[in-house]
């Protein structure tokens, strides 16, 4: 038995170089497990089956942070993959790493694969595009926040489920009515900094940080303590005090409350669709994210969250050609449309959205188009392209802490945001000096 095993191993070791010579391997590290992991694996299999020159080898490296850390550690050891998935807050870190990454537009130009930058949806690619308009990484999974409504809970509290919730003014009225109608959890949120500060700023066309939200330079400073943001957080702080807004945690803990039917309104990513559809035993509905009437240029467009694919330096030209082919395959209309419909993530090309509409998917699944419309109605401005800030994962942690100060009633919105700016700016200066 043992000898047999050793023999097999030896044979495999001897034979593997020949196998590798026939087809060029392209390694792809990602952060998806569960159902999403299966879908990614299926995409890779389809690509491998579609041609015989390249073999993409996919492997999961943990959650977003762990995947980024694995990629960085591997680069330091000279063992980096060809393609690395990096979440949106790691964008500035990757961009600043000249010499570690190869911009996607260069990879595509060299590989000769079909690549038209204009085919990608502006608000989706904008997050990953240089100020010159070149795509640096390929958007992979993108979502944007929307308002989820539990229609049964609204009706139970005596509030018309069809009431207009497009503005926060109307939401305020609805929350008061819900509370008065005996609802214990009128409003809950996921990803508080992403939705109520980052997206809030883009949606109202006010800056989140100077230098075009960091797109125009590393010497950027946070501007999240502006009038519009503070007013919004003041209102939310008051709702928290009155028991109209229930705080459940820094991540998407509130999703469990909403899916169980405990809460009436829920601000969460559009990608929450699959989970809510599967678990909710009540009548639910997707609405556009509310905006404050009379503030900024609202409603502008919301920004995305999710991850993009970065191509790492240090490989052979032939392998880059393979990476380019794979990225081109991922962007193709069929693959994108299927991904969009299976996951609830946004399509990355307009063509994939059109194909989805033509297939009747939006008509059969009401609400799935809300996010797409919210993203594409207006052309993004300098305030709504996205954010490009160093140490942003940590800055979000600081924002979370300060927001908790508001919800607990320990700080006013102005104090909390002034403090967040001061602490965040210190990290931005450190990032600037590390990447000069």
């Amino acid at each position, binding site marked *: 038995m043992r000898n047999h095993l050793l023999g097999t191993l030896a044979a495999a070791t001897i034979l593997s170089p020949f196998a590798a010579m026939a087809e060029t391997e392209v390694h792809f590290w990602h952060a998806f497990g569960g159902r999403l992991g299966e879908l990614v694996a299926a995409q890779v299999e389809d690509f491998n089956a579609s041609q015989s020159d390249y073999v993409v080898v996919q492997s999961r490296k943990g959650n977003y942070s762990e995947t980024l850390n694995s990629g960085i550690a591997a680069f330091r050891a000279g063992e980096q993959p060809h393609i690395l998935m990096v979440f949106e807050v790691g964008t500035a870190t990757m961009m600043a790493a000249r010499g570690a990454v190869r911009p996607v537009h260069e990879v595509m130009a060299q590989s000769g694969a079909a690549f038209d930058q204009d085919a990608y949806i502006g608000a989706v690619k904008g997050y990953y595009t240089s100020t010159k308009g070149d795509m640096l990484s390929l958007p992979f999974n993108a979502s944007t926040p929307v308002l989820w409504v539990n229609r049964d809970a609204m009706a139970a509290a005596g509030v018309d489920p069809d009431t207009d919730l497009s503005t926060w003014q109307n939401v305020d009225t609805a929350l008061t009515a819900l509370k008065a109608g005996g609802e214990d959890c009128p409003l809950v949120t996921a990803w508080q900094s992403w939705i109520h500060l980052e997206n809030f700023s883009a949606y109202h066309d006010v800056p989140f940080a100077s230098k075009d939200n960091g797109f125009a330079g590393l010497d950027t400073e946070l501007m999240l303590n502006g009038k519009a943001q503070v007013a919004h957080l003041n209102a939310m702080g008051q709702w928290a005090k009155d028991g109209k807004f229930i705080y*459940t945690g820094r991540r998407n803990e509130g999703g*469990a409350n909403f899916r*169980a039917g405990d809460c009436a309104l829920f601000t969460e990513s559009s990608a929450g669709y699959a989970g809510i559809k599967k678990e909710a035993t009540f009548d639910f509905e997707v609405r556009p994210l509310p905006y404050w009437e009379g503030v900024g240029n609202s409603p502008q467009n919301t920004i995305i969250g999710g991850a993009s694919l970065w191509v790492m330096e240090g490989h052979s030209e032939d392998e880059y050609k393979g990476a380019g082919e794979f990225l081109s395959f991922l962007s193709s209309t069929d693959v994108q449309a299927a991904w969009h419909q299976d996951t609830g993530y946004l399509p990355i090309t307009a063509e994939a959205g059109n194909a989805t509409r033509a297939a009747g998917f939006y008509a059969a699944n009401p609400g799935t188009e809300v996010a797409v419309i919210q993203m594409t109605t207006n052309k993004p401005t300098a305030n709504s392209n996205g954010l490009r800030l160093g*140490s942003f*994962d*940590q800055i979000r942690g600081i924002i979370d802490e300060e927001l908790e*100060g508001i919800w607990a009633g320990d700080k006013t919105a102005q104090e909390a945001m002034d403090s967040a700016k001061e*602490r965040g700016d210190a990290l931005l200066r450190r990032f600037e000096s590390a*990447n000069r």
Partner: protein
Amino acid sequence: MDQRVTFRGWWLPVLLIAPQVLVSAIFFFYPAGQAIWQSLFIPDPFGLSSRFVGLSNFEFLFSDKFYLASFGTTAIFSILVTLCSMIPALLLAVMADRLIKGSGVYRTMLIWPYAVAPAIAGVLWLFMFNTRVGVVSWYLGHLGYDWNHVLNGGEAMGLVVVASAWGRISYNFLFFFAALQAVPRSVIEAAAIDGARFWKRFWTIVLPLLSPTAFFLLVVNVIYSFFETFGVIHMITSGGPQQSTTVLVYKVYSDGFVGQDLGSSAAQSVILLFVVGLLTIVQFKFVEKRVHY
């Protein structure tokens, strides 16, 4: 009377301590040296460039009032974890020592929690106190107490302390129990014949004889609460709400692995190294004087 065996020549003793020296050098001194070296630089995450900045990483840390506050948080956390894991352990050990029947089962049950990894223990306690579905928070709600460690810093601290101390009670119990078994019966019996009651015997005879064990456990538990409680805090609070459970070692992690700020992370490791070294010296200098071997 004192008999000493000395080695003739020097190569045999050197050879005999060589493995220990080698292991210490490779696994302790080399990484510690690396941390000190790295703390003088601001590198970029990918290791493409690195700028020498002298002590400015330390300056940056000591000018950050949140970093300084985390010393206080760490002190409170460590003291609470040490007390909450040692006192119940001693109590349980004393009671187990008096058992005549079924002490084997009782002992085994008490040792079990030690087998649970800190991160798993964290999840376990998190479930019990979950604000929505937690069993304990549900009962507390019925008693009219609104448990919410997501926003209440005191409750969050209490929860991470209990979760960190729980598994540790077993470890401490094991040591206390062994030490209690080693207390000579004759001394206790003599005291009993002289009319000393249980608590009197405990305070004047048993406890002093336990002091070497208690001292050892004090050192080990303080170091545990400084370094190994990371998993529990990561699972339950991630350092929140606000900064109420951000202990020093959690900040090392979040700056290094979340923020990719390796310079600051290295500087914090060096500071931790000194703090723990200092604590251990203090313990040996002052506490050990009161210990009877």
